[in-house]
């Protein structure tokens, strides 16, 4: 993704507006290419269903799934679940990312903070979220809070590492330059350290948004009344509705892709003009 922005550094710097327009057309081309690949995959999928002669409850074809998707949306089956899951993801991201930024900053600043905290952070990360989730539900109930916590927890680690590494990667010579022109500590942070850390932070954000989707689904599996994870359980268990299961899976994947694209757009906006290296 970044290479695309680097292809035309001259354009982006000399004419930022044209550069941004070029970025948008790149994006359109990307979307078209992705759609093309999707179509191809759908064809292969349909071919497998035909050749194998599978029943829809075992492997529904793409057309069946699309139809089921449509009826689920029209009947209002999907939307409430989608909204619930989105709320969990966005709140979880907000909590996870903001705490990771603070902790990551502390770890980057203080060696003793890193010594003290990082073993616990690593331990929390190494414990499978699937094992932690039931505990969190026991402690915080099966409502929104536990879902947000699980989402936050799963994206906390990559985001913390990205922040710490980003802040540590700042060229000390740039900081010395800043001091030589009398930047205050705060100005050093806002004008040198944060911008320098931004590429890594954006990388962490990309990982985080996709993990947050996983976190929300896992949390809903463990306990919940509504959400796409719950819908998967329903479709598989009591409804025995495999096409709906597929439609739900596609919805989840779509949520992940859209969130990821939002981050990519944000990244291009923030870093677009920055030359490589």
């Amino acid at each position, binding site marked *: 993704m970044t290479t695309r922005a680097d292809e035309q550094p001259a354009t982006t*710097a*000399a004419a930022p507006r044209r550069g941004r327009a070029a970025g948008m057309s790149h994006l359109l081309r990307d979307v078209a290419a992705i759609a093309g690949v999707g179509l191809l995959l759908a064809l292969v999928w349909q071919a497998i269903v035909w050749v194998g002669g599978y029943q829809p409850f075992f492997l529904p074809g793409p057309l069946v799934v699309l139809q089921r998707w449509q009826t689920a949306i029209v009947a209002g089956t999907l939307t409430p679940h989608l909204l619930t899951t989105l709320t969990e993801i966005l709140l979880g991201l907000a909590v996870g990312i903001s705490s990771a930024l603070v902790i990551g900053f502390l770890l980057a600043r203080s060696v003793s903070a890193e010594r003290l905290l990082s073993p616990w952070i690593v331990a929390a990360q190494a414990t499978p979220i699937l094992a932690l989730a039931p505990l969190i539900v026991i402690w915080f109930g099966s409502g929104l809070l536990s879902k947000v916590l699980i989402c936050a927890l799963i994206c906390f680690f990559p985001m913390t590492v990205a922040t710490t590494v980003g802040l540590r990667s700042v060229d000390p010579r*740039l900081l010395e330059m800043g001091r*030589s022109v009398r930047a205050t500590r705060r100005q050093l942070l806002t004008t040198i350290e944060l911008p320098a850390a931004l590429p890594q932070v954006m990388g962490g954000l990309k990982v985080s948004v996709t993990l947050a989707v996983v976190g929300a689904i896992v949390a809903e599996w463990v306990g919940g009344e509504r959400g796409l994870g719950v819908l998967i359980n329903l479709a598989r268990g009591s409804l025995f509705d495999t096409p709906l299961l597929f439609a739900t899976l596609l919805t989840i994947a779509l949520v992940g892709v859209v969130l990821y694209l939002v981050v990519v757009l944000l990244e291009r906006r923030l870093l677009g*003009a920055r030359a490589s290296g």
Partner: protein
Amino acid sequence: MGTTLDDITITGLSHAFSVAGAPLPVLEGIDLVMPAGRVSAVVGPSGSGKSTLLRIVAGLLPADEGRVAIGGRRVVGPDPRVGLVFQEPRLLPWRDALDNVAYPLELAGVGREERRDRAAAFLELVGLTGFGSALPGQLSGGMAQRVGLARALVQEPRVLLLDEPFGALDALTRDHLDAEILRLWDRLGATIVIVTHSIPEAVFLADRVVVLSARPGRVVADIPVELPRPRSWATLDEAASTRSARAIRDALERRGGPLPGPSDARLPVTGSAA
């Protein structure tokens, strides 16, 4: 031009770094006066503490012993009267040239319009009109270094410290930029201290050349350069400049330690030109 207000007085300056627990003396008993409105050059072998000396004068590093005063006022931290140009451009890669030059003004709270105007004026002064919106990655080494120079000049410092500013550039670019420094100095009348490895550069620019010994750096010679001003490479008095260069070389060889030979001194540092 300069008054005694802007002279740099260094008295009894010593500094040691601690390397792996042991003290590494870098500067010892430096006493110097850099007269206001004059150009002083500092030469010395690699590791003799020249950069350390400049960092102390710039207020970036507190000295172990001794004091530095500018215009009689003790330097205790980065000083608005001082502009510093580093060996590398040290530009913020995400800012264009204009915003890099405007950076010190931005920190000082100067409004957007005013700082852009002033930065543009200094970009013009260093011959980079029209490159304001170029990013550092798009500039050549010499251009980037000139942006660094404009950034040091934009706050109109009375003292300009240059740490091997053009050491990484090819000899032609360096000569050209040295001539520009003199042109600027003529206009701004600042007190200039330039650290260099190049004896011809020191002779061309300076009114006097301070020679440091190998580590720990001490002042081993203070050689006046009696060349008429304004100077240019074309009209440089060969005989007089050769005399000064020889005096510097002798001082270095007697007390300082080896330096590159006369022809090497002007060659670019291989591989370091970006």
